């Protein structure tokens, strides 16, 4: 590792990553034991480790004297080390969201859902088991009440016995049919609306980060105009991210209170843990963004250090990317 042309750092040992790892361990232990005290201690140690790491190893301030750190060796030789680092971080993030998604798909393929019910309704029509003139949607409506409560006997009659008790639960009352979030969300446009607005908001916020970076890198702009543009674009990103979280909480509230879709069911657990983990990522992004806006407000960004916005943007775009998968899988499917 070297500071561009200023390679005077022969030794590069640091305890900071070990301190941060220790903090993570204490934090997670406290979390699992539901101990606020241990969790708080872990968080403090984690932040201390990360801050020490940041101050000790990444003293980049945008000046020519203290240039961007470069990595050496394979495969990132010659690249800015922060850029390589953020991509490695994103690689680990793919694994996290991949495991959420994989677990959901594993369960989902074994559940009966609203899609299976529609398929069965169609099957009943095709095999003339349903009443003449019935459609898949009309049978579906006979099977589930407005509040999505299964009407088992009525459904069995409507499908000519094709959808019987075993479609809903096993003999030992274990649910086979799962009310997934998409069943409620796609049934009512007003329930889908927050998620749909959020999807547009995240895409727009990705674009405003790009605009902030372009403004920061633009050497032709008057510094005052540049600072104002960077601040405003970042502030727009902050507003859109905040809107995302507000709408998400509103939507959760709606699903819990109007449909009784809670974390106590398997489908609810997958939905809230995955969308909640994504929400935490948005929140963390907003915390960093607040500092970035403050820095823009005091005129701290220019073409020398604009790559910090670029690296932040990579994280923010990834949050958008994760939503591109989560939205259709959990909200529409």
């Amino acid at each position, binding site marked *: 590792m070297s500071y561009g042309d200023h390679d005077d750092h022969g030794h590069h040992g640091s305890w900071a990553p070990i301190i941060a790892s220790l903090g993570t361990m204490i934090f997670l232990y406290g979390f699992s034991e539901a101990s606020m005290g241990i969790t708080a201690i872990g968080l403090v140690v984690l932040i201390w480790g990360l801050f020490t790491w940041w101050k000790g190893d990444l003293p980049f301030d945008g000046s020519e004297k203290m240039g961007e750190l470069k990595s050496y060796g394979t*495969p*990132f030789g010659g*690249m800015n080390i922060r*850029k*390589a680092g953020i*991509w*490695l971080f*994103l*690689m*680990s993030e*793919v*694994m996290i969201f*991949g*495991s959420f*998604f*994989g677990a959901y*798909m*594993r369960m989902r*393929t*074994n559940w009966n859902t609203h*899609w299976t019910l*529609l*398929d069965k309704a169609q099957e009943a029509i095709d095999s003339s088991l349903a009443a003449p003139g019935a459609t898949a*949607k009309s049978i579906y409506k006979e099977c589930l009440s407005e509040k999505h409560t299964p009407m088992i006997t009525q459904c069995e009659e409507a499908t000519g016995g094709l959808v019987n008790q075993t479609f809903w639960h096993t003999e030992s009352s274990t649910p086979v049919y799962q009310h997934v979030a998409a069943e409620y969300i*796609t049934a009512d*446009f007003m329930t*889908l609306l927050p998620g*749909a607005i959020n*999807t*547009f908001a995240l*895409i*727009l916020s*990705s*674009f405003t980060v*790009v*605009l902030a*970076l*372009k403004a920061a*890198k*633009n050497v032709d702009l008057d510094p005052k105009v540049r600072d104002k543009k960077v601040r405003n674009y970042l502030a727009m990103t902050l507003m859109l991210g905040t809107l995302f979280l507000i709408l998400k909480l509103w939507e959760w509230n709606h699903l819990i209170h109007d449909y009784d879709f809670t974390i106590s069911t398997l489908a609810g657990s997958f939905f809230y843990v995955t969308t909640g983990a994504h929400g935490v990522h948005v929140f963390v992004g907003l915390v960093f963004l607040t500092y970035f806006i403050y820095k823009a407000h005091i005129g701290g960004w220019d073409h020398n250090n604009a790559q910090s916005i*670029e690296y932040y*943007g*990579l994280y923010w*775009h*990834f949050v*958008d*990317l994760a939503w*591109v*998968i989560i*939205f*259709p899988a959990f909200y*529409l*499917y």
Partner: protein
Amino acid sequence: MGEHQTGWQKALYEKTGQDVYFWNFVFLMVFTAIEVGAVYLSLTYGATVFALVSVGIVKFFGIAAFFMHLWDDERELTYTFVFPFIFVVILFLGIAFTTPGGVAGLPAWCSPEFIGSYSP
């Protein structure tokens, strides 16, 4: 990001007055509208899944390639990003092969070795 403009991106800017990031943003918005609309078109299960997966792939590509500028950056970064997807694909194959009907329930045209029965 702006300094990464390649030939066709410059041409796009000269022709439309807007750069690739703007057009990427517009396309992402349009595809999201299609995505939401697909659910309300009363399509079959298969058609809906096909629409959602197709639109998802296009949107994923748009964000990763242009907003995250993997299109122009060092290939090593693309490999870094793609690497964990190998495990995700293995995971999905595992799910597909262990789902009841996931193999035996495939249509005949998906099974070149299909000779009428999967039983030994």
